[in-house]
């Protein structure tokens, strides 16, 4: 647990049209964590990618885990990194 704002990176396959999923996740994280997140970097990529990392730790990979991440999974990873309780 760092207590510091965390950096999230979302790498999505632009060729596959994964923009809606990337944007939905971005929006969910912005609303949930506000300034507890230092930055959200959205990286257009290829090859069926949908990866999410929190402070450099890969918390979801479409290739590794299959499918898109559950928002709850990513939120949980961010929360455990910053050490905050879930927003009520």
């Amino acid at each position, binding site marked *: 647990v760092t207590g510091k704002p965390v950096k999230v*990176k979302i*790498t999505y396959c*632009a*060729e*596959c*049209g994964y*923009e809606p999923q990337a944007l939905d996740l971005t929006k969910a994280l912005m609303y949930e964590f506000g300034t507890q997140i230092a930055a959200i*970097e959205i*990286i257009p*990529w*290829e090859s069926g*990618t949908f*990866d999410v*990392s929190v402070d*450099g730790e*890969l918390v979801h*990979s479409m*290739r590794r885990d299959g499918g898109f991440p559950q928002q709850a999974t990513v939120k949980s990873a961010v929360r455990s990194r910053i050490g905050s309780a879930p927003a009520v």
Partner: protein
Amino acid sequence: MTLDRARWDKGITYDAFKGAMTRNQERFAQNESRVTLDPETVRQFRSLPEGVRILVLAEDWCGDVVANLPVLGRLAQEVPTLDVRVFLRDQNLDLMERWLNQGKYQSIPVFVFFDRDFRELGHWIERPASVTERRAQERRKIFAAHPEFGSPDAPVDQLPEDVRTRLQAELQKMRDDMVPFANAEVQRELRDLVSRVAV
């Protein structure tokens, strides 16, 4: 679900699809302008009996649609007897379910050939396997030539931004360079399909 005339008429023409695109329109037009038709492909398509219909499942956000549908579009321009209708995948999932890639993936584009009585003659999905294979080979070469790019299987967000940007440029160049090969392979597969189904 059967395909009949009423359903067929709900599809839009190739030109209408192009006109309705909300993204990738310029890229699509550029790809269309880069298609060089093989005379043998045109000859085989011209030998098809009149009334052959080609159902296309597509979406304008899909890279394979933007790359490969222009090849069919150019063929249809050369062979005006072909009746091509485009159905948006996400609004026609019942159609999509009929032509899943490997029985499970909703890959597009899908080209389904029918005779005038809506009997299926054959279909083609997504992209040639040879293109996928060549792309993977070229990708491996790029990573082998640039150790700074790391492993091809590693998440790219771990790379420093300047390195990632260079990798992105290399991959884009590789894809651009491969367009003539890919277009030729799409035509080869469509030619094979047509030669098998010619009535």
